[in-house]
């Protein structure tokens, strides 16, 4: 066992958080997440375009899309659960980003820690799944069944990585992990195997190629989004930007030492999200069972070896 435990323990003591301290962060953190997420989506589309030798969308395209979707004059609802599903899908991510520390703001990160965060991240998926279920469209249900299978596929290596990281830092607190990395060394240098496995699962977590079987447009009509129009679709666009942000910040906090200042932080998260994007446009799509197979084989193996090193 390494000697990091003492450090993390002394550095990080759970303090009493008062609501007044957290309130500005509760407003700012989701906003930052949303804006960075939009930029990531723009980057995603721009990189895709450049790889295909196209010009790509203009700078404000993600904003145009979302404003247009929320500005729709008519939109359909299949019932209350359909509506609530979208509310929970967006709201769950708003809550999740407050559990993710960023430079200068810890939110309520010390009240939950990484285990809580990874389970809070399932709330939006569950909300969306319920909402899609009420649409009474089998394409949507198939999409959800595939999405949950995909979650099963990438969460197992992810949870091994989380275990390894938490064991290494002897803490489940993201704040403690970041503090340790900023004074010592980045996690990626101390746990390169876990970092590699984490990057692999990141690809699955973002739900992009080659692991986007559950939205397969031509096959199941974009799966969960099949009956989404107007603000429903807009909610999913908002959710997607949060999804990009959460995945990249989580990775940066676990392995790249978070960020001591904003410039460094943004540089890191955009760098992190760039890697899966580049990979995604180079590969065709995996079938569900192939995704499960590859996720349970390579990243699990690498992560288990990585754990053996940190134990």
């Amino acid at each position: 066992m390494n000697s990091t435990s003492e450090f993390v323990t002394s550095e990080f003591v759970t303090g009493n958080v008062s609501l007044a301290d957290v309130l500005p962060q509760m407003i700012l953190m989701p906003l930052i997440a949303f804006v960075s997420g939009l930029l990531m989506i723009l980057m995603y589309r721009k990189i895709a375009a450049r790889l295909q030798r196209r010009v790509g969308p203009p700078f404000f395209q993600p904003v145009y899309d979302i404003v247009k979707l929320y500005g729709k004059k008519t939109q359909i609802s299949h019932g209350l659960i359909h509506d609530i599903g979208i509310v929970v899908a967006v709201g769950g991510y708003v809550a999740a980003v407050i559990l993710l520390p960023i430079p200068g703001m810890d939110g309520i990160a010390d009240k939950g820690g990484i285990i809580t965060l990874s389970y809070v991240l399932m709330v939006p998926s569950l909300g969306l799944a319920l909402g899609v279920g009420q649409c009474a469209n089998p394409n949507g249900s198939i999409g959800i069944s595939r999405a949950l299978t995909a979650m099963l596929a990438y969460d197992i290596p992810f949870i091994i990585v989380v275990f390894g990281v938490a064991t290494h830092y002897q803490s489940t607190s993201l704040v403690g992990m970041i503090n340790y990395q900023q004074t010592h060394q980045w996690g990626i240098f101390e746990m390169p195997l876990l970092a590699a496995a984490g990057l692999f699962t990141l690809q699955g977590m973002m739900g992009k190629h080659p692991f986007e079987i559950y939205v397969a447009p031509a096959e199941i009509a974009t799966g969960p989004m099949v009956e989404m129009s107007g603000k429903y679709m807009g909610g999913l666009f908002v959710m997607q930007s949060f999804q990009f942000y959460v995945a990249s910040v989580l990775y940066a906090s676990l392995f790249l030492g978070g960020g001591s200042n904003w410039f460094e932080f943004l540089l890191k998260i955009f760098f992190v999200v760039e890697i899966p994007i580049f990979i995604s446009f180079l590969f065709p799509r995996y079938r569900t069972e192939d995704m499960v197979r590859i996720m349970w084989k390579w990243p699990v193996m690498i992560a288990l070896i990585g754990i053996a090193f940190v134990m």
Partner: protein
Amino acid sequence: MTVLDDLLLFTALASVAIIALRRFASISKFSVVVYALATVLLIKMSALGYGGEPVYSSFTVNVLGQILQWRFDALSWFFALITLVSALLAAFFMSGAWGEKYCKEHSKEAYGLLQVALILNVLSMLVLLASGDLLSLFIGWELVSWASFMMMALNPDKLARKAAIKYIVYAMAGAMAFLMAIAMTYNMTGSLDYVQVMQGMAHLSNSQIALLVSLYVMGFGIKMGVIPFHLWQAAAYAETPGAGAVFMGAISARMGLYALLVVIVQIIGLTRVAAIEIPYTFLDMQNVLAWVGALTTIIPTYIALKQNDARHLLAWHGVGQGGYMLLGVMISDSIGTAGGIMHVFNHATYQAALFMTVTAVIYRTGTSNFSKLGGLVTQMPLTFMVMVVSIIGLAGIPPMNGFVSKWLIYRALLLDGQPLLFVAAVIGTLGTILSVYKLVHNTFLGQLRLEHQEVREAPLSMLIPMLGLAIIIFATGVMPGVVLDWVAAAQIAVGIAPVEHNLGGIELVQGGLDMIWVTGIMFYGFAVGAIIFYVLGGKSKHIHQYDNYAGGHFLTSKVRYHYSNHFYAGLMHMIGGWYRNVFIKLEHALVSLVSFMSQFSENFYRSSQPVMLVAVVVVLALYFVLGSSGGAEVSAGVSLGGFNQ
């Protein structure tokens, strides 16, 4: 007369009264009052839940020089609270419309028997929980087994009868193992009293402890349904009549965990268990038990994923969640055990609620088969809401209570440095998420069937206990400290350091959990989401389910447009081949072996060789008389000949 006397006496008298009154229509109301009064008596002992002194019964029996006594400590109180509250809610649940329908479908007699079975179950469980020594524990154990059998055998369905018979065979096997273990304990320590046995255990060798632990765990494990004894439970509980299944699913199998906590954790002690190395492996006995728990979470959960009937799916999850409890207890630090014990409470709440929702669906539609349901959310919104709250609890997602206990188990595994067990626990959780979505989707979401268009919400008598449970699930999720108080007291009772907690959860230097904050932030997030959705977005129109995208196809009621068959097709392509029915084959093999042996012995008796038989009997008799001269030592009314030397 102590309060415990009052409680036991009251329940016993109530059982007699219910047996006598079982044909009267007022039996439903009467039984609700009985359980409510019993709960009040239990609450009188609530000092136990906060570290009070054990309450002894003034009634003792002297058998063969052993004093049989009954007492309640914090652990018994915790389990008894769950038992009585589940019984109260189950009785309330069946007191109204459900009971009437049951009377109509079966008979008044059958309904009366269900009430009798319920009160007998409660009585026997209280007797078990109150046991103050190993012999009274065994008496309680047997009573519980037969009471459960009575409950299961009420369903005249062939499948149900078969499941009940299977149960009683398993239960008897378990009881035999338990009895043998008790006899050996008596032999080795000279007493059956907990305290004296505990002292006696210190002198035993590791191999003796290993033998005892194996036998006890086999006995208790069969009741808990741990691997490889998991085959009986799901079918037996699922086929029990609705309200009975609510009670059975909530608490019945947990009696095994109670006995395990008392015997393995309290009396033998996990340090002794951990000291037993398994030869040729890196494992010790405690690891093995933890792995049994972990496998019990995984295998039954993935069997649940394949079920096509809501009741069976839930019952299999009940087996799987038992694995978490065993795993939590076997981590043996204060956080892990707290998680394991707390999970008993959490599991009881959501499992009872889930069985109630499924029973309500059966009450309204007549089926729990996934291929015949769908889209009921518009017809039964409150039932749906309860189911969603409970499945969030079952899946262990914040902010419901199931998350807290699972968090404690994960946290303990992390602190303990058990990566593989941790991964196993998470695999179980992920499988649970998949299968609960299948449950809620195939019953309540998707397209509403034509024949269900007139289905109405469940009647009030069924809704009230469901909603009450949903509130408990949420409230104890937000404020787990309420339950953790009791859990901490129970931990002290079994001799483990109590978990340090506050109202919101756990404060740990290396990352704690505060559910009040987490829930607060989640609801803040939902509020933001609602503002984005309702304020920024425009008006929307609620449309008919046939106005749906089908690639330009015109949907009508003639073509069903719904996905419920083979729900996780992609996953099953991958893991479908892993379901090899290994345990079923093992069970068949054992059955064949036993029937072969019985045939053999039968033939032996039937063979017309009387001289031979007489000769054998005489030889054996001579051996007993001459060989074991210390015949007076044959004690406890059990033939222990072989172990006396």
